[in-house]
């Protein structure tokens, strides 16, 4: 199982029921395939940075899921088929999160070591560089 974020943009004129229907569809694809939906976030309507399908605005929706690659593939296929979806992106997040955890644990360890020996909070050499 891997963690992914699927973000897609809906046509700005999509009615609310339609939005919920699409969300339900995607959710069912994920859960029926054995994945888990951790979060569905409606990020609301925002201005697009460039025109997509002659639209200047779009309704952003974010799915945070943990699933297999096959499920993601199926989700993307579905999104491509739905007309209201004007753009989508899938980002794998677990690797990044793992790296972040590693850095954080390392930093904590270092802080603990510094704190016991000198009693001063760890200050990076950046402070010196700024002077």
């Amino acid at each position, binding site marked *: 199982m891997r963690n992914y974020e699927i973000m897609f943009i809906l046509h700005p004129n999509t009615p609310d029921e339609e939005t919920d229907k699409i969300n339900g569809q995607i959710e069912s694809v994920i859960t029926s395939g054995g994945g888990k939906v951790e979060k569905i976030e409606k990020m609301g309507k925002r201005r697009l940075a460039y025109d997509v399908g002659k639209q200047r605005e779009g309704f952003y929706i974010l799915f945070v899921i943990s699933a297999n690659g096959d499920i993601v593939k199926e989700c993307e296929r579905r999104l491509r088929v739905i007309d209201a979806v004007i753009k989508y992106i899938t*980002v794998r997040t677990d690797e990044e999160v793992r790296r972040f955890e590693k850095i954080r644990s390392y930093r904590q360890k270092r802080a603990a070591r510094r704190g016991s020996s000198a009693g001063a909070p760890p200050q990076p050499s950046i402070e010196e560089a700024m002077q």
Partner: protein
Amino acid sequence: MRSAKEKRPAGQKQYYRRKKVCKFCVERIDTINYKDVKLLAQFVPERAKIMPRRISGVCSHHQRLLNDAIKKARNIALLPFATE
């Protein structure tokens, strides 16, 4: 500042350039998320090009993360590819 000036032998440039530091290192930002448009926009000037490291002072590690994040954000229309 003054001491740095005085140390220089004659004939060298007299101005002191403040050393640039990586914003992400200073603020301890480990992950750069593509959804954080406010942060990314600081490194995307008017023409929507990615700001080079020599100007922003971002370290190579964070510049790479920043690059990835900006490119992802462009893909989902959070940031522009180019502006006229």
